[in-house]
């Protein structure tokens, strides 16, 4: 079965770093992995891409041509539209065998997911080549150290994912950088039910005013365990393994996202 991880998230959230960590991890496992750099504005990254979209088109090319008409965002949208119409260029460079495993390092701009049909089209094309797609939304753990911020992170992820219609995993990155207490707090938050978290926040006027909304959000996040968040400490081999296992399971079950909205909470470690 062909598998594909779509790596998305805000600028600087750690998408490219995640890809390079997985690149090394797959190598140590002797598992084949192909990485596609889909960010036409990418600078550098520490993995060897099998496909680099900048060989096809880069934002710099576009900006040099049309500096005056387009800001950086216009340039990116132009590139992404061009890419979505030239997907065969990518296809030709993939091995595309039955056991192909692909990671796609995407640009961060939210508009590509929420306003424009571009990313959805790209995902649909991958699906049409029989890839099972799982979206990974990267969130910098520094920004979600309190329950309200964690909710904000989940909502941001949902706003991108709702239009992609794939299975999904949220990854909290840069856990290795957090001070020990913060790390513990984040891990505790991830272990408890969201509803518990929301009930636990203090009774500031803001929280009281938004109590009903917070409860509603929490109940959705609890019901759909597909939106469970996973913390990744990429200096810890075990943390990397756990995450990969979870994603592999999700991709497998994610064949039909409609049926598998609810992912079983228990992952059988022998199932590979």
């Amino acid at each position, binding site marked *: 079965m062909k598998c594909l991880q779509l790596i998305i998230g805000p*600028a600087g959230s750690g998408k490219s770093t995640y890809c390079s960590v997985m690149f090394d991890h797959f190598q140590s496992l002797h598992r084949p992995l192909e990485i596609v750099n889909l960010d036409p504005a990418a600078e550098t990254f520490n993995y060897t891409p099998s496909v680099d979209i900048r060989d096809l088109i880069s934002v710099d090319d576009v900006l040099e041509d049309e500096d005056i008409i387009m800001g950086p965002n216009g340039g990116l949208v132009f590139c992404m539209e061009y890419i979505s119409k030239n997907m065969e260029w990518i296809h030709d460079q993939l091995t595309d065998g039955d056991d192909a495993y692909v990671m796609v390092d995407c640009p961060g701009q939210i508009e590509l997911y929420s306003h424009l049909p571009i990313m959805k089209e790209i995902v649909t094309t991958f699906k049409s080549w029989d890839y099972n797609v799982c979206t990974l939304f990267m969130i910098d753990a520094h920004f979600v150290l309190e329950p309200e911020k964690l909710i904000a992170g989940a909502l941001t992820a949902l706003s991108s994912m709702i239009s992609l219609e794939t299975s999904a995993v949220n990854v909290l990155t840069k856990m290795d950088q957090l001070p020990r207490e913060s790390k513990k707090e984040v891990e505790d938050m991830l272990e408890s039910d969201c509803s518990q978290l929301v009930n636990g926040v203090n009774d500031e006027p803001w929280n009281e005013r938004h109590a009903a909304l917070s409860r509603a959000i929490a109940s959705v996040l609890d019901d759909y365990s597909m939106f469970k968040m996973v913390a990744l400490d990429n200096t810890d081999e075990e943390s990397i393994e756990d995450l990969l296992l979870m994603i592999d399971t999700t991709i497998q079950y994610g064949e039909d996202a409609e049926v598998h909205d609810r992912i079983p909470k228990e992952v059988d470690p022998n199932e590979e």
Partner: protein
Amino acid sequence: MAESTASSSKQVPSEMPSSPLAGSSDGPNPDLAPSVIVLGMAGSGKTSFVQRLTAHLHAKKTPPYVVNLDPAVPYPVNIDIRDTVKYKQVMTEYGLGPNGAILTSLNLFCTRFDKVIELVRARSSTVPLTIIDTPGQIEAFTWSASGTIITEALASSHPTVVIYVCDSARATSPATFMSNMLYACSILYRTKLPFFVVFNKADIVRPTFAQRWMTDFERFDEALEDSRGGYSNDLARSLSLVLDEFYCGLKTVICSALTGEGMDEVLTAIDECKQQYRDQYIPLYAEMRAKKVEETAKRLREDAKMGDLTSEVKALDVGRVRDSDDENE
């Protein structure tokens, strides 16, 4: 004027960033003119909206104070990030792409934000409000350390309001509408500040569809189902219930930056938010925010990457923050 007596030498900060609270050491003052942070997705019309609101206030003979935080766009305002940080230079000298350069420029500007707060506070008895335009790439502000520092530094100084500009013409499909509203809701949770949504570009598409969806959950659900070829998605349906709750407490204003429709309603909404800041935010937040700003600033200083930036600050000789009127004095 107060700001013209400020140091005119181009000092280089010794560390990243100097405490953004320096300008507001006397704590939050709910009587000062509010600062309005204008957020929205790329191309939603933030800049046009800021310009229209500015023109509207000029016409009333109560001109606002305007701050531009978008390093990529030139534009006549009172304080412009571009006077302090040269975006193109950041890009070329540090081999950064457009996104990295925006983030870095904001970080660099952040080191001087105490000065911005000082200028804004000095003006707040003579202007009705301060309007702040943000970079096109929304997450450069909403998901960055500098965006957090700037927001919290403002909120711990004086009334601060967040406006989310939504492009009505691009929200006509139920999925994009939902995506936009989820993002708006996430900003509410991130900032916890008084907040309202502006449906802009009403001259292109009347946002009455949005109002219908916001008041009638069933109707939105039907539209969503139709748009997905009649098959429904459990998650999307549950989320529309969540959003229903979000809309209950949400202020919205229909406007057009092109025709000027809705500007008085925007001003009314800002006034309501200012009151909300006084009632709900002042009592408990002042202390907490001050503590958090310090923590975030500390993290930024400790961040290895930011360590590198300290040398970038020196190499680039980041300009001082200046009020554009300074030159005319």
